[in-house]
């Protein structure tokens, strides 16, 4: 008998005493919890996102489409970035005012090469107001997972209010589980020293979130 059969056999024997539970999954779990917490207008939801992002030390900026290129250029320059990695599908205008070296996200680029790049600019798949979270799903405006990990400075653009949801349940509904997903809530942090939170370990130590509105 192989271990697969052994384990499955043990599971079945272990449950032999349990009364039959033919209830389907939908009935087995009472989902009496809330889909979102509190009542908010669309604008208030965006405000909550900004507040919670900032609470975990993300730097939050707001701008319109027209202001974005200047803002991105200013943030990169303020960070002293000499190079920025660019996902293949990033809207071309976003980096229109940038004069630093652009590095294209490529399957061939190695981790040590990425380690020499200062910053990355991406879009996102969805942002969660209640938790101050942005979620990346590897779409072409976000690129491979490594490009938002190895560089020390991440600028993430969130289209508000379209990409903003209130809650974790609403976010999961919008996401495709077959894509590689990264949920990001603030810059990397640790609680490993005396259970006290310190920002800045292996992931980007600076996370800037731009809340981009249409006009």
């Amino acid at each position, binding site marked *: 008998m*192989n*271990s*697969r059969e*052994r*384990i*499955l*056999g*043990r*599971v*079945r*024997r*272990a*449950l032999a005493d*349990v009364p039959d*539970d033919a209830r389907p*999954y939908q009935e*087995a*779990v*009472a*989902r*009496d*919890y809330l889909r979102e*917490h509190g009542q908010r207008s669309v604008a208030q939801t965006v405000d909550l996102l900004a507040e*919670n992002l900032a609470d*975990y030390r993300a730097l939050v900026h707001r701008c319109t489409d027209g202001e974005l290129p200047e803002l991105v250029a200013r943030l990169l320059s303020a960070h002293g970035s000499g190079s920025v990695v660019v996902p293949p599908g990033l809207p071309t205008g976003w980096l229109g005012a940038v004069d630093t070296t652009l590095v294209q996200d490529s*399957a061939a680029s190695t981790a*040590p090469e990425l380690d020499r790049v200062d910053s990355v600019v991406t879009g996102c798949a969805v942002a969660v107001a209640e*938790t101050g*979270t942005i979620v990346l799903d590897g779409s072409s405006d976000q690129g*491979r*997972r*490594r490009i938002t*990990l*190895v560089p020390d400075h991440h600028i993430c653009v969130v289209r508000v209010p379209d990409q903003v949801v209130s809650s*974790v*349940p609403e976010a*999961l509904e919008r996401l495709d*589980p*077959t*894509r*590689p*997903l*990264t*949920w990001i*809530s603030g810059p*990397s*942090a*640790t*609680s*490993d*020293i*005396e*259970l*006290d*939170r310190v920002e*800045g*370990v*292996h*992931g*980007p130590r600076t996370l800037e979130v731009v809340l981009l509105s249409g006009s």
Partner: protein
Amino acid sequence: MSGTFVGMPAFPQAAREAVGNTTLRGNLRHATHTIRDKRARAVAELEDWAALREAGKQIKDHTLRHLDRYLVQVEEAVTAAGGTVHWAADADEANEIVARLVQETGESEVVKVKSMATQEIALNEALEARGIHAYETDLAELIVQLGKDRPSHILVPAIHRNRGEIRDIFRSEMSEWGRPAPEGLTDTPAELAEAARLHLREKFLRARVGISGANFVVAETGTLVVVESEGNGRMCLTLPETLISVVGIEKIVPRWQDLEVFLQTLPRSSTAERMNPYTSMWTGTTDEDGPRTFHLVLLDNGRTDTLADEVGRQALRCIRCSACLNVCPVYERAGGHAYGSVYPGPIGAILSPQLRGTGSEIDASLPYASSLCGACYEVCPVAIDIPEVLVHLRERVVQGGPAVRGGNRVVLKPAKGHAAERAAMRAAQWAFTHPGALRTGQRLASRTRRLHPRTLPGPGRAWSGSRDLPAVPAEPFRDWWQRTHGGKGGAK
């Protein structure tokens, strides 16, 4: 201090040392009290906490009830997504599988994400024996590994170390493993985190094999989820070419939607955050993004034995948040090492004796490592009634009885060393079902009360070593009642 838990003394002896260690007591008190209050605030933000807790419990119970079906579904979904699934009945088999998979890559070093399952099976030691170096990349795990120490907490394995001790370990040990600690390293947490970043970065950048566990596996999609803070998890999960995830079979949830419960309850219970900094979710492999090869090792190692126990199986609901450790007054004073297992604290006291059996001295003593105060049950985000399971396991220790070990039904003998207690319990039972005898005993105690000392010799010192005995009253209540209310209530 040895790096393993083999041959641990029973809990009371191990705890005695910790209780007397004022540095350790101070470190644990500071850390657990800090997180305790924060957790309470994070939980209080959600008005539907009780409903989330109940849903989490029901999801896990439903999954465990149909675990065979969901295991097969996981296998199908992961395979369809490009992964390879392996089954390991015990620690040795899991270690063999992982070692073989690493050897097949031709690599002799791996980077690891913090994982309770791989600690449980002592994977690092097994790999080392085969010439493979495993580098722990979680900050606390790094502290433990560099200090040749043992983990003492589920979330923060180096919780027993304060910042000064961590600085000393970094200064003296980092150079042995790779990049040395920066000159003039101080004990500020930010500088210590920076030192870890520099030390580990070279390992991340050259790593070709990553090893992880998982917090959740979604059966319908084959998605694995790792919840972390530092980004070391993302490094290990995305930079290497090969990823091997060792996951206990109880980590399954049926559907994608189920994550909406646990992604709310786990971070708030664990690090007391609305959301942890990073959560990675992956389904098999993705072309040109992340590892090209993905292996999932499904681990039993005592879990099916635990599943066979109708009271004890609720321990398999555990999502390893460690909230129960942080509120436990016994853990706070005894420290994690006294539990003799990678699973310390209240959850460890019910998990270790089930996964490993109650045969060893330490495992037979763990069910008693609790005052049954119930604080653990109150904070548990999946409502594991830890006191109930503790009492159940005490029964197994003193009375023996049917159990399942290694998949086989066995009848356990009562543990040795409880004979006097058993006799006393039976004598008390007799007296308590014979009120006349009880009354005679009470009167005898009252009549001889002037002879009673306030402290006791011999085994009685377990009480009177630190506490005076109460004075025995001149007469028991029932005699007073008989005198003053005689005739009433005497019918029965």
